[in-house]
């Protein structure tokens, strides 16, 4: 059994009143000792995946199992215990509490989990030594460099010795000297009992990885020119689906709808004969941002991006 099993995970959230689905039936499994790197463009769902594994986001469907514990569906005290004992999180912006010293930031996590003051202090000092910051225990985050803060954040993530450590862009705010120290620590974290999953744009992390997971939109299969005849109300493509063709209306009328987070649809635009639509998804590798539906008997022609570019003329 793998330490971390993500199966058919679908996550949706609301953004600006619209429903967004960054993860759709996503799968991942990682074993002890593995260090995985999640790569992908902004908005592709890296942080969302980490949030879901950390128990901070409730997915629409799917399963997340950590050490054979099903995370989806946990709530209240069980969820708090899971967050305390099963996952450690290293945040992009360090997210240390500014009013607390480095030691207190770590102690707070230990004591929240019920450790005694003495045990919490001992653990904090031990971890600060581990990340080579033993001499900075009494310093507040504001008086430390970005690299030092990130190392304290790593120490905090390890405070309760969790089996899974999640790191979100851990090198984003660091210069190259600071990155070196942080990378070294992150590599050492993935040991016999622990899995580390790092979301990043930083390709310098790739040599550390045991596994690289590219999180990019589902790519539509190659397609050739298509002519489609649609009946009134027939859907040409759904919002969120991958897209490979740019369409032109030959006759009839296409309406573009966007799903709202309250379950209703908003009419975005109407496309009349001679006009094209749906070009952004295939051009930029994004999911369709709206659903296209014929509002009467309609004929459309779909062309791949290269052909579309060749024949592009201003028509709107």
């Amino acid at each position, binding site marked *: 059994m793998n330490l971390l099993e993500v199966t058919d995970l679908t996550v949706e959230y609301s953004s600006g009143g619209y429903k967004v689905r960054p993860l759709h039936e996503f799968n991942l499994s990682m074993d002890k000792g593995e260090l995985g790197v999640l790569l992908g463009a902004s908005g592709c769902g890296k942080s969302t995946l*980490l949030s879901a594994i950390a128990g901070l986001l409730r997915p629409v469907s799917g399963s997340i199992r950590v050490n054979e514990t099903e995370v989806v569906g946990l709530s209240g005290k069980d969820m708090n215990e899971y967050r305390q004992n099963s996952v450690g999180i290293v945040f992009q912006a360090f997210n240390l509490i500014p009013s607390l010293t480095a030691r207190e930031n770590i102690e*707070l996590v230990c004591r929240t989990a019920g450790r005694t003051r003495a045990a919490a202090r001992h653990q904090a000092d031990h971890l600060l030594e581990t990340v080579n910051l033993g001499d900075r225990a009494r310093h507040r985050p504001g008086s430390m460099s970005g690299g030092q803060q990130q190392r304290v954040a790593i120490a905090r993530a390890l405070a309760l010795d969790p089996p899974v450590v999640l790191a979100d862009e851990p090198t984003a705010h660091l210069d190259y000297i600071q990155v070196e120290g942080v990378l070294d620590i992150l590599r050492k974290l993935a040991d016999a009992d622990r899995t580390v999953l790092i979301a990043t744009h930083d390709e310098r992390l790739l040599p550390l990885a045991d596994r690289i997971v590219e999180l990019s939109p589902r790519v539509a299969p190659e397609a050739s020119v298509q002519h489609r005849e649609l009946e009134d109300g027939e859907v040409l493509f759904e919002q969120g689906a991958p897209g490979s063709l740019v369409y032109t209306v030959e006759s009839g009328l296409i309406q573009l709808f966007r799903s709202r987070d309250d379950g209703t649809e908003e009419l975005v635009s109407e496309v009349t004969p001679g006009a094209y639509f749906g070009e952004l998804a295939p051009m930029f590798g994004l999911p369709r941002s709206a659903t296209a539906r014929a509002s009467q008997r309609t004929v459309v022609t779909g062309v791949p991006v290269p052909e579309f570019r060749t024949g592009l003329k201003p028509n709107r």
Partner: protein
Amino acid sequence: MAGPGSTVSPILLASLRDLQWRSRRFVLAALAAGLVFGVALMMSGVANSFTVEIKNTVSSLGATSWFVKAGIPGPFTDPAPFPASAADAIRSVPGVSAAEPILVSRALTHGAIQTPRGANLAPGPERNVNLLGVVPGHVGAPRVTKGTPLGGPDSVVVDESLKTGIGDVIALNGVHFKVVGLLNGVTYFAGQPVAFVTLGAAQQLGFSGASLASAVITKGTPEGSVPGFTSLTDAQVRADLKRPIVQADQTIQLIQVILWIVAAGIIGAIVYISALERKGDFAVLKAVGTPSSHLFAGLVIQAIVMAVGAAVIGILVEIPMSSSSSMAVRLALSNYVAVPVVAVIVGVVASVMPARRAARVDPAIAFGGGK
């Protein structure tokens, strides 16, 4: 593992550290709320003084009962005069061991106009005094705290708030009297001092010497009645004396409540701003498994600490404010003890909204890209 309750202390640590971290803001808020507490405390003292002065004034005459004309609510608020000879009939009521007429009226004064050595003084501002005419050496004659008891027709015993000394000469409605004795806290109608003169002098001042009285006060509980008169107890007289200032008292209480609300608003606003600024901290704390209830408790603790600090400041600023007030301010130890108690309540009330906001923070925002 730690024992029960140990999970509260980390949030206490975080709350106190945050207070230190943002100390300038919290101190300023505590100062502002402290001033409000101080004013509220002073208002309590003013309201208390209304009750205390009435009690002092009524008890200063040493009466067991008060006979007034039938249909009259009391001798002070509606002093309907009647012949002073009515005292003779009242003396014969069973249970009455002594009875003397008193006359209640008012006079204007400018305070001391002459020193004991005869040096003239510039008249002070015009003031109203409550004039009580009593029979010297009998029931109704006040027990002085300084000087000698009321004596001859040109002598007067006054409350210390009139700021005169023994031997000073004052003018009451233009007639000169020599201050022979002083009283402490014998005022009514919101701090207006009482001046005791002889019954004859009061009759001369108010009624051109007509032998009239407003009430007959007795020693001994009357066991019978006198036609045309009503017998009142001290408690009834106190209630009558308080009636004209009931609305003022209620207004003061309303202002006090408003002041507590203002203090809660000051503390609540600061804690709310703090909660907004700490949204990220709360998200992180929730992400590492801190229960929402602990975040709620953390902000309540902050508000209580600030409110108690404000209460201490309030008590400290009340002292100079009250001493410079022209109105009497009387505070008991219980009033001072009540301030931190009320402050805790104010703190809890003030923190509810920000604390609820903190408890509802979505932990996913701890991730930059999380929703």
